[in-house]
């Protein structure tokens, strides 16, 4: 159990169209399906027993939460505030697609208490938007940013995708410049990953999509961090950049430092400090379970201390704060620095990490290979 405030995640699985790179639990659905989903989500909120923590963030993710009616979003917010222990003014996040953004809707979101709007801009280039299967134009993208900025949300964040096939590092820097011009408070820049089961994976298998070579990916990754850092956006995680400390994602950081979180809606994951469980991935079985009055949970795992330590390393090495080895020693009784002396020295000599007191902090080049860094530590 933690005395830190927990985060609440609500998964909205609907999209107007499924993007060819996306492997999240998403589906298309008409208004009737969406209404039925909202009822099920409300029922799941009621069904859920006691959660031991107070929440200070509520995150609508998906999918495309902006495709829900503001009135439905409001009902959901009211229900969770009634049902769960929550700080007075929880920080509400909403993911939105540019084509869903209108001044009226934005105003309604603000009234519900949304403080961060995260826009799925993805690119400022029409051809790239078409390749990514997005529904909006560059104009719409710019308009949506302006609208949410004018509405006066605390944080306006935009999502971008880079490392597209054939995209040069220079072309990507130009996209970043376009993004910086719109003056968002926060950026999430995701390097394109081809996931199994997506349309892109199929195209790649057929040889119709060729990923950037490793050197190109590495160069684009480095350029992202250098370019945005120079423009005043601090990269505080592999893909996340904030114009000021206050714009960092209060919610996402909980995932990276073992703060408890509760996830509701299909496929949502929850964590209470020791146990992690996750809901049924597909909407229909999730809905049917709730109708039966059963927890819509697919499975769970209890994390051993070793598991927690590995996760601490894995997530810590993805952030600019790195891994606090003194804290880890206290929590897990394992001295990572002592048992990995030679490795730490080698990684430092190769410019992948820095040492600051007892913290192992990844450099930009270290962040670029963070997935395999954690696996090298012995404990």
């Amino acid at each position: 159990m933690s005395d830190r405030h927990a985060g609440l995640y609500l998964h909205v699985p609907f999209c107007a169209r499924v993007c060819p790179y996306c492997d999240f639990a998403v589906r298309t659905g008409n208004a009737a399906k969406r209404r039925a989903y909202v009822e099920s989500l409300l029922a799941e909120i009621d069904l859920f027993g006691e959660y031991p923590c107070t929440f200070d963030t509520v995150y609508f993710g998906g999918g495309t939460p902006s495709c829900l009616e503001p009135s439905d979003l409001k009902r959901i917010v009211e229900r969770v505030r009634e049902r769960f222990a929550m700080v007075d003014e929880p920080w509400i996040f909403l993911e939105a697609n540019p084509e869903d953004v209108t001044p009226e809707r934005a105003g309604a979101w603000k009234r519900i208490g949304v403080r961060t709007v995260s826009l799925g801009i993805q690119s400022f280039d029409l051809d790239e938007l078409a390749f990514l299967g997005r529904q909006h134009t560059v104009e719409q993208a710019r308009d949506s940013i302006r609208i949410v900025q004018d509405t006066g949300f605390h944080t306006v964040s935009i999502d971008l995708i880079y490392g597209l096939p054939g995209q040069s590092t220079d072309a990507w820097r130009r996209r970043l410049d376009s993004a910086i011009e719109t003056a968002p408070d926060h950026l999430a820049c995701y390097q394109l990953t081809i996931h199994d089961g997506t349309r892109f994976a199929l195209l790649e298998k057929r040889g119709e999509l060729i990923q950037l070579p490793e050197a190109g990916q590495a160069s684009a990754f480095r350029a992202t961090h250098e370019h945005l850092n120079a423009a005043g956006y601090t990269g505080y995680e592999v893909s996340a950049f904030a114009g000021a400390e206050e714009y960092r994602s209060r919610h996402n950081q909980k995932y990276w430092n073992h703060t408890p979180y509760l996830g509701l809606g299909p496929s949502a994951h929850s964590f209470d400090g020791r146990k992690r469980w996750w809901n049924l991935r597909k909407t229909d079985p999730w809905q049917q379970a709730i109708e039966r009055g059963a927890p819509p949970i697919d499975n769970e795992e209890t994390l051993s201390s070793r598991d927690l330590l590995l996760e601490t390393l894995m997530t810590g090495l993805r952030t600019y704060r790195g891994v606090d080895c003194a804290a880890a020693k206290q929590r897990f009784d394992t001295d990572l620095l002592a048992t990995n002396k030679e490795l730490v020295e080698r990684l430092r000599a190769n410019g992948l990490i820095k040492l600051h007191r007892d913290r192992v902090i990844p450099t930009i080049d270290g962040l670029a290979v963070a997935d395999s860094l954690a696996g090298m530590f012995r404990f």
Partner: protein
Amino acid sequence: MSNIRNFCIIAHIDHGKSTLADRLIQHCGGVEDRKFRDQILDSMDIERERGITIKSNTITLEYTAKDGKTYKLNLIDTPGHVDFSHEVRRSLMSCEGALLLVDASQGVEAQTVANLYLALEYDLDLVPVINKIDLPAADIDRVKDEIESDLGLDPDDVVCCSAKQAQGIEEILEAIVQKLPAPEQDADASPRALVFDAQYDAYRGVVLYCRVKEGSLRAGQTIRFMNSGKEYTLEEVGTLHLAREPQKELGSGEVGYLLAGIKTVRDVAIGDTLTDAANPASEPLPGYKEAKPVVFSSIYPMTSDEYPELVKALDKLVLNDAALTFDKDSSAALGYGFRCGFLGLLHLEVVQERLQREYGLSLLLSAPSVRYHVTLENGSEISVDNPSYYPDPSTIAGAEEPCIRGSVMIPERYIGTVMELCRERRGENIQFNYLAQGRVELTAELPLAEVLFDFYDRLKSSTQGYGSFDYEVLDYRPTDLVKIDILVNGEPVDALAQLAHRDRARMRALHYCDRLSENIPKHQFKIAIQGAIGGKIIARSNIAALRKDVTAKCYGGDITRKRKLLEKQKEGKKRMKTVGMVDIPQKAFVAVLKTDTDS
């Protein structure tokens, strides 16, 4: 008792020895037709599959000849490959005569000649037999010429047959009876019997195969091995048909088996002489040569938890393979294993295959080595067959390596390519000898070490399969020996160290570096792979650092998935060997050690 004939069949590999043995057995009714399977004397899977005989087998045939008398023909099957010439020797020592089998289309080959010399060394009478006369390419006249000019045997004595078609079998049996001598017998002398083979039987312990020269052996008798001095009580004696048939006694001149409660073949010196402990003969039988390993390699299990199984498997294997030697060995990179000695490369392959197939082990074998004689500055001399024990070069005064006389039989048109191959392999004193019909016997003195590395494959491919090869170990000669170390990020990988002639070192080292760099995955840092002699780098290749390996998104659900992925990687790493902080997967060792091509 002149109705006994002890004989064997000697031939070049693939000339049809086992098939002929099958036909002789069938003809004499040694086995019912319905129980018959091909190569009946070859009982190991590998023997059947490769069509080679590794262990010699023995069978007694009863044949009623044209003269109306019934003869006991003891057929002692012999292996055809040069690696197993010690087994051939034992077999020959138990016989008075041999069938010298020659393929009607291939003619006399290198091993035919080598086997002929062996047979003459033991004073055997020979019946030349031309086999496979049913083949379209059969050329009986040419082969008769070869038998006369290459082997010096009388072409009029030749018996022609087709073992496959069962033609000429009767004629061969008649020739055995008429042309091969009966054993000299002395029933009253103190018994002397030659042990020519031993096999392990899971129920009865070691089964000794022996030839009684003088006297007789019977159950209950206490026997003594004259060389080792060990004594046992005979539990059973008998003759060998397809199954063992117990007899009251084995008399002078006879061939048969003995059971004496012996636990492993290690306790038996094959070639030793048995006598009666109560009434011992004064001298053992002469002429036995011990089989000495000439090729050495370390065997490691793929995963260390397979080590106990490897121990068990080797212990069982040597019950039946007295020529295989092994001692504990260990490598920092590959863990515990065994340094094994083999009679040759084929023997090594056979042992490796048997361990893998019969015992289900996955193995890594280090590069084969010969045994070098190293003289130190202080005047002492040591033998080194394992690079790990190579002394500090500054203490070495000189080194010698075993040399062989290789003999290659080829059609004349390949002289150029084969001479080139021999020169490339540091061959000296290359000579050739024109045989009949445009064929040449080329002999060269070569370092044995050079033959270990794909020599036979190269010979076969450069002569379109026509070249046949045989060798005998000559002597030790001075060599410019160096130890090649393979370094990964500056740290030597002990299992990849090897000894080689200085002129060949760079090529070997390059081969190793390239294979390793192809098979070690990228790491977070640059990896240098180097080949070195002492402190001097002679070959190098690099593996660039991994530059991009990070998932873009990592939220609630991805954390479990990513952790599981990491755990899997960590698990996989346990099976890798870590040298200089570099994780080397097994497949890299396999790739390096498996293909020993120099090119």
